[in-house]
């Protein structure tokens, strides 16, 4: 167990969404209230200066988890602690560079809001904005342009500058490069890496792209239907994936130069997070399903000889 307090820690974090069908739908179609358990009991931590990669397929709750951590959503249960305190203190970089900047605001206005919230006096904001722009690879000439005048990659740089202006200790990056062209993706990933080396900021990197996560993360957490199923230092996770889901996920990645013939095939699709199955969430698609998997939720097991590599799977529990 860790001695010092990590920068950010979540304790039993849950976030449910309730949908209440309309009066007619309830009376005539007999539809019931539904609970989507987007995040259902997550304990993760992020160290100072560390990048934690969060991977999973669409609908697994990874974006919701990121948004709870920066305080966009209030948790249904559990806590997010920033160095032991509950006030949210993280910034966010968004997936869609076209929707994440207000189309009616110039770059100056966009950065100005961040600087104002940080308490930078009015007369210093211009200089500060110029510094920020230069840091993310843009020039002062861009200060009075509107988002539509920029390419996707440049917009994402502005988004990074906006987050940076708050001098955050943690930045939650929600699919920061998945909407960008390959050549531009690398530029942004290198930018984030450079920022971390310079300022010691921590990242929660949310991505469905395992190659990106492998490249940029120190540790990785794999999420499935609202729960973390495996977490480990990056190398250890990619070399020795221990949860059947992680194994399938890793073998499904198209890799440059590999033939792709020898892969584990997952059957079926991701079940919905509305009323997930009791017991292990992955049992419906798991090739190693046992009786116990349907009965109780697996407890975390640390892989022997691999510190920090934890897996939530009955199969592992029975082995060790």
């Amino acid at each position: 167990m860790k001695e010092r307090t990590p920068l950010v820690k979540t304790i039993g974090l849950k976030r449910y969404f309730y949908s209440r069908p309309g009066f007619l739908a309830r009376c005539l179609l007999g539809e019931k209230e539904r609970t989507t358990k987007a995040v259902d009991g997550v304990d993760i931590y992020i160290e100072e200066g560390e990048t934690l990669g969060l991977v999973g397929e669409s609908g697994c709750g990874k974006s919701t988890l990121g948004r709870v951590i920066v305080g966009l959503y209030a948790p249904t249960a559990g806590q997010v602690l920033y160095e032991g305190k509950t006030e949210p203190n993280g910034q966010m970089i968004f997936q869609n560079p076209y929707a994440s900047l207000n189309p009616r605001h110039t770059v100056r206005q966009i950065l100005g809001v961040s600087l104002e919230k940080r308490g930078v006096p009015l007369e210093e904001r211009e200089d500060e904005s110029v510094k920020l722009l230069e840091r993310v690879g843009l020039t002062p000439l861009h200060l009075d342009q509107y988002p539509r005048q920029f390419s996707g990659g440049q917009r994402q740089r502005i988004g990074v500058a906006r987050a940076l202006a708050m001098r955050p200790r943690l930045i939650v990056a929600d699919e920061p490069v998945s909407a960008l062209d390959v050549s531009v993706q690398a530029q942004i990933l290198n930018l984030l890496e450079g920022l971390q080396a310079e300022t010691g900021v921590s990242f929660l990197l949310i991505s469905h792209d395992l190659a990106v996560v492998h490249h940029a993360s120190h540790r990785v957490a794999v999420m499935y239907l609202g729960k973390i199923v495996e977490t480990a230092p990056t190398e250890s996770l990619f070399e020795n994936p221990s949860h059947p889901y992680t194994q399938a996920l890793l073998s499904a990645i198209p890799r440059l130069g590999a033939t792709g013939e020898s892969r584990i095939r997952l059957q079926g699709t991701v079940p919905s997070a509305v009323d997930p199955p009791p017991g292990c969430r992955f049992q419906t698609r798991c090739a190693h399903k046992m009786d116990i998997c349907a009965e109780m939720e697996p407890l975390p097991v640390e892989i022997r000889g691999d510190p920090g590599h934890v897996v939530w799977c009955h199969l592992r529990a029975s082995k060790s």
Partner: protein
Amino acid sequence: MAAPGDKEVLSIKGLQVCYRTDRGPVRAVRGVDLSVREGEIVGLVGESGCGKSATLLSVMRLLPFPGEIVAGSIEVDGTDVLALNGKGLQALRGGTVAMVFQDPMSTLNPAHQIGAQMKEALRVHGLPSTRSVLVDLLKEVGIPSPETVLGYYPHQLSGGMQQRVMIAISLSCRPKLILADEPTTALDVTIEAQILDLLRQINRDRGTAIVLVTHNLAVASQFCHRIAVMYAGQIVEEGSVKDVLSRPLHPYTRGLIGCIPRFRKGVPLTPIRGQVADLSENHEGCAFYPRCDKAVPGCLETLESLLDAGDRMVRCHRYGVPEYGDVAAAQDSGCS
């Protein structure tokens, strides 16, 4: 994978596509030659705006307004596509050539049941559309309990299943060629793998040629026999997947490969500098010039034609210049 035959299914020569916008012409495709043989899987790879989708849509004559084919010829299975109209086009679209799009949710009509939509596709081409035919088609694309699925509406299926239905519809007329435009981009990795398997199996079992448009080099590397890398409306390098990806010759191909994280710790990414070329500008010489490390002033003067580099074609002024080869050799172990 099925061994490609000799017969040419698709032949594109000197294709030029222009979008006449209010702000002047955008030359989306600037002279593309592409040939696809029977049973072959060819990847068209490139970033957004490189003209890969416009090339594909031209084959179907489906370019959206104000796009226009201004030069070149397209032949599918010996038929001149540009000379077709009315009935001929109808026989081509969804008949000889089928298309699979990126977003199955928006290509399936949300108001009609799956069965009805499949029936319609068969009816248009004058084929029998009995229930058993439909069930067989759905079975072939690996849909569990096809009888039930026929009565479903699109929203009742997951993205992967919808894409399977689209593929079933595209198979219904036994096409010679399937054009797949980013068919797995909207899907999760585990589902992507399933769909690519399905397409590969169709290629193997039926000998259907496939043109896959993708921005994902890794997908192309696992799925295609041959790839053509496109930049700014032109093919800059074309050859077998193995040759092109393990020993890229064009600086752009090399750059692209350098941009992809490779599951090896400590290998830094080497991005291509700058932005993707703007096609509304007129490119006299090489459009990659402003982003190229190997460029010399001569690159801007004239446009290089595709050079024969033995195992592939490459469009670069610097190819054949002595030090160029050394650089290529240094990159040799590029990816494997």
